[in-house]
């Protein structure tokens, strides 16, 4: 673990990313303390510019505090990102593992099923799913999970395919272990590093997807989210730029941080590659 952290620290960008991410998480956790009350409450005059009337980041068209919206929105954005990624991982890892380990017909069936999802433009599918199931946090998470599992399945399948023929897996077969315990106990731990890296990027994509859905008005109407903030500021952007810009910066920083963390994890989990990159630079 200490070794892992030492290698992670070598990538300066990754450390910056981690700090930003921790700050965003802290903001989300402290939102009720920093901004007590609902972010929907009208607390100032409409269109108050940043810095006036105690509004740090200004107020929106109904006099709601943008800063409060961002802080409370952080909880929803991170929650949606984490939960939908977890769901997509569960599905993708299971299917990919089965396809890669069993091979043959099972592999063909799973991969055709995966390709079926990959051929549909994912954002359109997500919109469709949310529209069908009526916008709510549950349906948004479901839609994002459904459109983001196929890459996981492909990565996991490729890892399982190559690990399956390794001698330690064959040794486990010869010991008489069950298929499930070989998949979970022997192969999966060795396939974890690409999954970890991929999932940090998936959280970022999920946050973007959720923002895009909210921007289009397909978010949960009862929850304050970053996408909703940008969407509501869209029509008055020349009058009150702060309504769209600050939530936009929040999304930008969070996604950037997640990408940096992903790259850092990738370096730390593949020390050989990282060293080559370091040597070339």
């Amino acid at each position, binding site marked *: 673990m200490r070794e892992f952290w030492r290698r992670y620290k070598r990538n300066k960008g990754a450390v910056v990313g981690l700090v930003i991410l921790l700050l965003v998480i802290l903001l989300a956790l402290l939102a009720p303390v920093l901004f007590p009350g609902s972010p929907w409450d009208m607390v100032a005059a409409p269109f108050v510019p940043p810095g006036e009337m105690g509004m740090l980041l200004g107020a929106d068209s109904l006099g709601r505090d943008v800063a409060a919206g961002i802080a409370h929105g952080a909880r929803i954005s991170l929650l949606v990102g984490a939960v939908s990624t977890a769901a997509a991982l569960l599905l993708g890892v299971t299917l990919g593992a089965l396809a890669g380990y069993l091979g043959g017909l099972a592999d063909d069936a799973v991969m055709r099923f995966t390709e079926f999802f990959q051929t549909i433009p994912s954002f359109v599918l997500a919109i469709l799913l949310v529209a069908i199931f009526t916008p709510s946090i549950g349906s948004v998470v479901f839609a994002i999970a459904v459109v983001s599992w196929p890459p996981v399945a492909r990565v996991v399948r490729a890892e399982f395919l190559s690990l399956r023929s*390794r*001698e*330690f897996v*064959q*040794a*486990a*077969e*010869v*010991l*008489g*272990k*069950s*298929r499930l*315990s070989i998949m979970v106990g*022997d192969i999966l*731990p*060795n396939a974890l590093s690409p999954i970890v890296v991929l999932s940090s990027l998936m959280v970022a994509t999920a946050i973007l997807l959720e923002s895009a859905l909210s921007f289009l008005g397909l978010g949960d109407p009862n929850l304050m989210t970053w996408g909703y903030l940008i969407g509501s500021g869209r029509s008055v952007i020349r009058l009150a730029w702060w309504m769209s810009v600050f939530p936009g910066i929040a999304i930008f920083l969070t996604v950037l941080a997640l990408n940096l963390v992903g790259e850092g994890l990738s370096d730390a989990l593949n020390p050989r590659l990282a060293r080559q990159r370091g040597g070339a630079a």
Partner: protein
Amino acid sequence: MSLLTVEGLTVALPPGGDRPHAVEDISLTVDPGEILCIVGESGSGKSITANAVMGLLPGGLPVRAGHIRFEGQDLLALGPDAMRRLRGARLAMIFQEPMTALNPLMRVGDQVAEALRVHGAGGDAARRVPELLAAVNLPDPAAIARSHPFRLSGGQRQRVMIAMALALEPTLLIADEPTTALDVTTQMQILRLVREIQSRRGTGVMFITHDFGVVAEIADCVAVMQHGRIVEQGSARAVLDRPQHPYTRALIAAVPHGASGLVAPAPSAAEPVLRVAGLRKTYRRGGGWFGQRVEVPAVQDADFTLVHGETLGVVGESGSGKSTLARCVVKLVEPESGSISFHGKDLRPLSRSAWKPYRQKIQMIFQDPFASLNPRRKVGETIAEGPITHGLPRAAALERARDLLRLVQLDPGAMDRYPHEFSGGQRQRIGIARALALEPELLIADEPVSALDVSVQAQVLALLADIRGRLGLTMLFITHDLRVAAQVCDRVAVMQRGVIVEQGSTMQVFSAPRHPYTQQLLDSIPGRGWTPPDLTEAA
């Protein structure tokens, strides 16, 4: 005057390594028309020495001291341009891996011509290329020159590499383990070729190898390296027959040698443990919708029996199907026909769950000690895994793992460490312990020592012999090394292209081979004219 003189060469290792210098105070000479063999185990610095002479040391390994004089010039003082003019023209090198040393997209003839062209001799390439390819005994040089490397076998590629190295008639040829990746019969052809070219042209050869058989086959002089130092140097006869330094003596004592003392007379009347009959496995590569299906018969009608307590060796070259045969027996590969009877019960048609009870009885040791242990699992867990799977309580299984580590001569403290903390030989011991944890009756060893250095190999073979005797194991021993087979096996089966061509007691197969292929294999054992001196009292 000597062709090449290396004096007091010291090359530093990057700080933090296990020793400060990759090679230290190396002095050696190569005369024209002489073959100097540098022998040593992996990590002894023999390749570093060769690369230093060629000026091919990687950036992290600076030369700290010493001189390399070639035809009177100090090579270390030359700039990169001058060195490049020498390289290829006066000094040439052959590498270990013929499969990756040729450009896959370029025709063979063009690659040889390129070697001529970069040194300004491209003009008569059209005439010289077929000549060179003929000189390395390649059949039909014109056709070979037009082919791409993937059409050639490993041995043919290595010949092309030699042709390229010889294109400009260098006076010094450096060969870095040129035959290690090749089969034994091909190895012999390449060794003869090197010897022939060297005597025809008077080239000096610096030949790097880890195999004392190869040394006995071609060397005029020998330098033995250990931990970056030359520990013994002298004429081949002197070093091979009267080794002085303890390390050389240990290495030579570890060379597996034909006649073994421990061939137990197999109780032929005993009931067979394993009887394999008419076993067949064909690999099919599907050609998709339009391509043709390719069928490779890996094992054809294999028949053999193993009686209790005996060791059957399966020998053959790569691609002969010996590993597939072993994998069929443990159901890692599903054969399409034939029977595999274990104590009279045919295992082939059994389902995965019906096979499970037999997993305890039949265990396997794998070839690559670096790939056969799960890198994310502690050693103790790895060994205890089998018994736990078969219902032994965890505490008892771990206790057994501790005992087994002692049995394979490892410290029980190894239980809580991960595989990467162990050397190749230690890992192979862990692999053996894992196989023994289920107290099997039949042990299948798939090339268990071929990835190991010769002294480690001897230790692992001794361990296997000891365990076999103590536990009364029956063993199916797969190997490509006939010397190893001769040492450990009671009976031997020789495989060629999926067919068992000869089978019999080790003594009989080795002293009176009936099949021409067996004969050819035996003739190809490097150094068969050399009997290692008996050094048992020193070992």
